[in-house]
């Protein structure tokens, strides 16, 4: 077990990563577990496709749908922000207002200590968070999928090398590694998602590798090979579609994790640099102002919490819907 386990974090920067959470949280949509598992197997409905089935199950999961709705809402708000936020509120970097105003009709979230509209900054901060989250996970996915599939499919020396490299990555405490990496790359918006992306690949690679290893044993893979299918074809047509469910679940949760990491790095001053609004950066500025101006602390934190929570709930819902068993 020792080789194949991981910790969500080095230190206290916990990112919601699936595999550790060994199948908990099936509050909404799993057959009930009973003390005596004596429920006869029931095939009530004709089975649909895997994805159709998954969607059916996901739709019944109220929490996952709430998460999906909230994410969609945030994306719409932040993507359309240029059309309505500056006109009605302010440019996110504009310092034209009196500082530290309490929330009002003009400034629904108040103003910060150099007279910027907090609402506008929170809305534009979502861009940074979502973009970093998605881009970072994309990088992890690209690297992780490539290395994980090669490693899982071919095994042998390549597998050993990739997995030992992953071990090295896991040996570093996560936050420390991210900070050190950013110290080398220099703190900036771009480098933040690069750093988070680079740190994320080993988990993806492991998840994919282990699901490939289990899928690979199936007879249809042997059958395809016997029929002379190429490695690439076997990988793409036969293995990937069956190994991809854990990746989807994991990727969804990782976006939440990346958003928290970005916030933490920006909070520590190693992330997105001023004047670009970011939720973590805003919290960093609010540090000493919690009593005179609580709105500076409340709103960015609330934004991080709800967004990350949405991804976590989505991930949980997907896991249950796709019936992914995540453990090591």
């Amino acid at each position, binding site marked *: *077990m*020792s*080789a194949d*386990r991981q*910790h*969500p*974090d*080095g*230190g*206290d*920067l*916990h990112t*919601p990563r699936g595999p*550790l*959470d*060994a*199948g*908990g*949280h*099936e*509050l909404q949509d799993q057959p*009930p*577990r009973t*003390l*005596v*598992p004596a429920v006869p197997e029931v095939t009530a409905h004709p089975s649909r496709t895997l994805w159709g089935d998954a969607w059916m199950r996901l739709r019944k999961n109220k929490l996952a749908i709430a998460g999906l709705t909230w994410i969609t809402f945030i994306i719409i708000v932040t993507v359309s922000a240029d059309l309505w936020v500056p006109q009605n509120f302010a440019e996110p970097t504009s310092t034209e207002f009196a500082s530290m105003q309490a929330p009002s009709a003009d400034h629904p979230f108040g103003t910060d200590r150099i007279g910027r509209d907090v609402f506008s900054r929170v809305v534009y901060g979502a861009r940074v968070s979502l973009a970093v989250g998605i881009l970072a996970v994309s990088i992890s996915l690209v690297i992780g999928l490539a290395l994980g599939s090669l490693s899982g499919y071919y095994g042998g020396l390549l597998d050993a090398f990739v997995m*030992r*490299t992953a*071990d*090295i990555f896991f*040996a570093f*405490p996560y*936050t*420390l590694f991210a*900070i*050190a990496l950013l*110290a*080398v790359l*220099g703190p900036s918006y771009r480098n933040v998602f690069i750093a988070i992306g680079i740190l994320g690949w080993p988990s993806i690679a492991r998840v994919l590798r282990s699901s490939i290893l289990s899928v690979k044993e199936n007879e249809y893979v042997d059958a395809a090979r016997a029929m002379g299918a190429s490695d690439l074809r076997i990988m793409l047509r036969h293995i990937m579609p069956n190994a991809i469910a854990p990746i989807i679940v994991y990727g969804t949760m990782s976006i*939440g994790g990346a958003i*928290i990491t970005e*916030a*933490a790095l920006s*909070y*520590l001053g190693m992330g997105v640099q001023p004047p670009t609004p970011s939720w*973590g950066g805003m*919290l960093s500025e609010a*540090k000493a102002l*919690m*009593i005179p101006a609580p709105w500076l*602390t409340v709103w960015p*934190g609330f934004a*991080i*919490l*709800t967004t*990350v*929570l949405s991804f*976590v709930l989505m991930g*949980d819902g997907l896991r249950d819907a796709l019936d992914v068993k995540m*453990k090591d």
Partner: protein
Amino acid sequence: MLKYVFRRILQMIPVFLGVTLILFALRIPGLLPGDPVQLIVGERELTPALRAQIEEEHHLNESVPVQYGYYISGILQGDLGRSLQKNRTVTDILLDKFPNTARLAVSAILVEIIIGLLAGIISAVKQYSFWDVVVTLSTSILVSVPVFWLGMLLQMFFGIKIKQWTGGAFSLPMSGMGSPPDLVHLILPSITLASVSTAYVARIMRSQMLEAMGQDYIRTAMAKGLSERVVVFKHALKNALIPVVTFIGIDLGALMGGAILTESVFSWPGVGREIYLAVMQRDWPVVMGGVVVVVLIVMFVNLLVDISYAVLDPRIRYGGTTE
């Protein structure tokens, strides 16, 4: 058993070398901003003679592999170099910080164990009850809360807002750093540090309990006439605890390596914050020495976890099944 431990230690070696190699790569001139010699000299005037002297002292004039050799042998001898910013050796600085980090880590682990296990068990035993919903939802929320934000809120509320009522029972940590340290000051940071892991412990505990309670041996125990309480708290719990204990152990390792965010929010003079501050000040010897030490600590604690895992789980202790 001994063989197992030995094999685990052997496995650690390439990882450790990989870690040091990465860290060493960061020292190669040009990779990091700033001239290493200038960094070492600080604000003193850099004469060519001084430069030569420093290159000599720090083996900067040697070839890269030789430098790596010096670097590794230094680490093995416990020599991590001197801080560029402080007039102290890296070893001294880290030795200062480690007890604080350890104190915080241990108390956070206690919080995890007490609250996490309890919540997970209640949630599993009373599946689908009100408490299950509460636990499940609050663990989801807890894993989504940025710890630094949680720390800020706790600090604000317990440390300042209601200090009149609590009589300063939740004083902020800094002032507790006397000798002997005041335990009260551990409360807020350890809750903050433990928050996410507690949620994980509760979730793992819950799912492991549910899984254990679905096992055949539970039915056997029930058929024996044992009460549900004995079945749940003896037969199911002992099985469910194994992965949880492993998680807690690994977490302890990670926490021992310093908790940058919590330590920053609470200005807790621990290893994580020290390394973070060193990064901010480009105090590379402290960063590298610190990271090496932290990695070693993490690996060592993980080794202990593996060993204790083997002790806990007879299936590992006595090798695989006989079939």
